[in-house]
């Protein structure tokens, strides 16, 4: 049987699969595509594991570790595939790092990191949630409460 693709295959680039349904735009915001980037977005695809999922394909781009870390916070179950010449050359699960520096801002308005010109630092407290603790004000937040710098 011929494989039916709902979204065109890409020659070179990255596919981010298993994004929780409804979060594709937040992932896209992290990727900040340039005007010339070709991006395909899929929403509410059916999925065995997640029932519904979103998916992104971005042509001609391989993600930095920093970008993968950011995606992990929004889509902890996402799978990142690198495509070269229509073939998947590597497939990996995203993983939230133990320490996250300079990527997120602290939601606590009374945290020093929102007042001084400094690099924010968070520690992974619980992968479920996920919950992150601010190294400075010591408060714990879920990733959903936090915004990217």
């Amino acid at each position, binding site marked *: 049987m011929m494989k039916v693709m709902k979204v065109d295959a890409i020659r070179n680039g990255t596919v981010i699969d298993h994004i929780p349904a409804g979060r594709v735009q937040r992932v896209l915001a992290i990727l900040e595509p340039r005007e010339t980037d070709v991006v395909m977005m899929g929403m509410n695809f059916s999925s065995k594991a997640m029932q519904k999922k979103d998916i992104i394909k971005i042509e001609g781009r391989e993600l930095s570790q920093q970008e993968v870390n950011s995606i992990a916070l929004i889509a902890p179950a996402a799978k990142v595939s690198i495509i070269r010449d229509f073939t998947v050359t590597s497939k990996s699960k995203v993983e939230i790092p133990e320490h996250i520096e300079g990527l997120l801002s602290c939601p606590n308005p*009374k*945290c020093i990191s929102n007042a001084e010109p400094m690099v924010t630092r968070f520690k992974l407290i619980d992968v479920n949630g996920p919950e992150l603790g601010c190294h400075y*004000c*010591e408060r714990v937040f879920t990733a959903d409460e936090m915004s990217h710098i």
Partner: protein
Amino acid sequence: MKNLISMRDLNAEKILELVALAESLEKDPSQIDLARRVMAAMFYEASTRTRMSFESAMKRLGGEVIAMVGTSGTSVEKGETLADTAKVMARYSDIIVMRHPLEGAARYVSEQVNVPVVNAGDGANQHPTQSLLDLYTIKKAQGTLEGLKLALVGDLKYGRTVHSLAYALAPFSPEFYFVSPRSLCMPAHILKDLTKRGVKFTEKKKIERIVDEIDIMYVTRIQRERFPDREEYEKVKNAYIITADLLQNARDNLKVLHPLPRVNEITTDVDSTKYAYYFDQAENGVYMRQAILATLLGVAK
């Protein structure tokens, strides 16, 4: 120990070491000589008690103090960053003691300077020298930190002191009563955390029935400004006033603690009972701060 920023950085062993040193310094302060050492007090907000107790501690050990109190007329008003101010203070002194309204300020400064930093309060976050002096006080009052029954009374929701004390005592198998109005009860995340650490506690709305069961009663002030609703405040404001009468059936060894200043939550007739221990507690602050200064300056024996 390079800095003292948060109780989270201290294990039970380090706490007991500081308590033992405070005890020994109370008996014989002459064992430590901080002559020609300078402590810089960087107080971005007013705090008479904490600052003066640190100054007293430093001076009684022979050291000197320079102080910045409030930001008016300082380089801070001209827009200097906290990091820059601290770096300059570090060139003038051997140790920095700082209070700042923003949370995490002391941790940040400790990463910017080469001298030890003591957190004397960073907003609603930590006030570790208060927690340590509370522990020293409890040890002195009861002879041990192990297996005590304590009631924490009053504003348990916003009270930084009681949060910190609950954590600090956690390794010593305490049994807590958390006594507060429902609207000011201990935050759920702290209760969850304490449960994880195997700490026993019971939440109570009234203090009367447990007075005869406890070794320590730690009272905090209920602040009117914490209540969105004036009526709600009026309902609870007198529920937690400790009087000599209330203490009639207390255990002989009960001690009443309060971080001070008190307003009306402990009536003055308690002062003359054997249970009153809050002024001793304030004095203990000096010995504990001496222990902290001596340890961080590397001169503790």
